[in-house]
């Protein structure tokens, strides 16, 4: 057993989740593969969205995977950083917009 919660080498074993639940695992990977195909959005655009979400989800495996995927698609580091700022802006905006709820509550209780 690894003594840390995350081991970079575990990413390579992702496919093995099907071994303990073949049907659901296969359905997931089929869906996953389909999502990232070229569609109304390009595969490149989807890769950048995935990178931003990987950060907001703080998934180290996904960050490794979609950084590499972006490099393979010729995505520049400037584009990657901008994508992450989009994720960060939504995360901080999502925190701050709840400030309205706080203000509503203050106004109701102490207005």
């Amino acid at each position: 057993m690894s003594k840390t919660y995350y081991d970079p080498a575990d990413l390579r074993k992702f496919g093995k989740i099907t071994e303990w639940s073949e049907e659901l695992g296969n359905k997931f990977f089929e869906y996953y593969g389909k999502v990232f195909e070229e569609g109304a959005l390009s595969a490149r655009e989807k890769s950048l969205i995935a990178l931003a979400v990987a950060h907001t989800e703080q998934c180290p495996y996904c960050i490794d995977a979609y950084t590499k995927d972006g490099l393979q698609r010729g995505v520049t580091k400037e584009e990657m950083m901008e994508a992450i700022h989009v994720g960060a802006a939504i995360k901080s905006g999502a925190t701050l917009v709840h400030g309205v709820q706080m203000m509503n509550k203050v106004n109701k209780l102490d207005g």
Partner: protein
Amino acid sequence: MAIKSLHKRESDLANSNRQLEILSNGIFKNGELPTFKDKISETDQFPLKAKKLEILQINVGYMCNQVCEHCHVDAGPDRKEIMTRETMQQCLDVIKNTGAHTLDLTGGAPEMNPDFRWFVEEAAKVGIKDFIVRSNLTIIRANKKYYDLPEFFKKHNVHVVSSMPHWTRGKTDKQRGDGVFDKSIKALQELNAVGYGMPGSSLKLDLVYNPSGAFLPGDQMAMEKDFKKALLEDFGIQFHNLFAITNLPISRFLDYLIASENYEDYMYSLVEAYNPAAVENVMCTNTLSVSWDGYLFDCDFNQMLELPVNSKAKHISEYNQDLLEGRNIVISQHCYGCTAGAGSSCQGSVA
């Protein structure tokens, strides 16, 4: 500081035996990953056999004006290995007597060979269907004596294939050296000016993309679209096709992989992306690589690893179609580089 060749640095990895040892030990020896031989055996594709010769790829010397970070030739200004006119003549004799339809000149910077122009002129007379010169572009701007190369290429209807790692300055210069991007752009504009790469032009100009680090190339068509859009919008440059080529784990790229602790992950990526369909069309099955001193190899990579052809005919002066056709291709773990994903050859994807 400019990087130097592994030979100049007297690096351990300048020794091809050392490279082959690394490629056979560790994760391949302990069974973590299958050897290339085992992998292609799974689909009954071992031994790989040479088909009819179609492409003669001639390395006219390892001298180069650039010292690219990942060069598989370990080329640079300090490399003195140069093909003589006598060996070139032997190559011409073979071209005249075989059905090879493509002549592919590479290096180093092939233009730096003092007999380069003589060779092109003589080879053009023989009437080759596709006559490729792999130009690094910056050579055209390196010295006044090379300024007329676009006109020279045009005169002999040479198919120019040039390396261009990215459409941005930062990524290009990181891999190929400071100032390379600007000089390459200027050279491409000059090639465009004489008609190279223009839509519908018979003067063919293709670009080669290879990744700037420890990752595989993306989809060739998608990359071509991005390259075309960016180069046209930013610099008014046009070209015909983009060849996406995978970096093989040998020479300076192997040195980089080990130094950056990416070697194992990279080999995993290559093995995971293994595509049996790409094996069908790997370039060693229809290509013969000739070294600066006239020896024969299955590909340019085997040339650099000093793995000669498995045939009694080992030198261009001994060329014999009957002996070479059907020979077993010499393989090692670097071959995974040509069979990953859509496959990789000097003409780009193969599957």
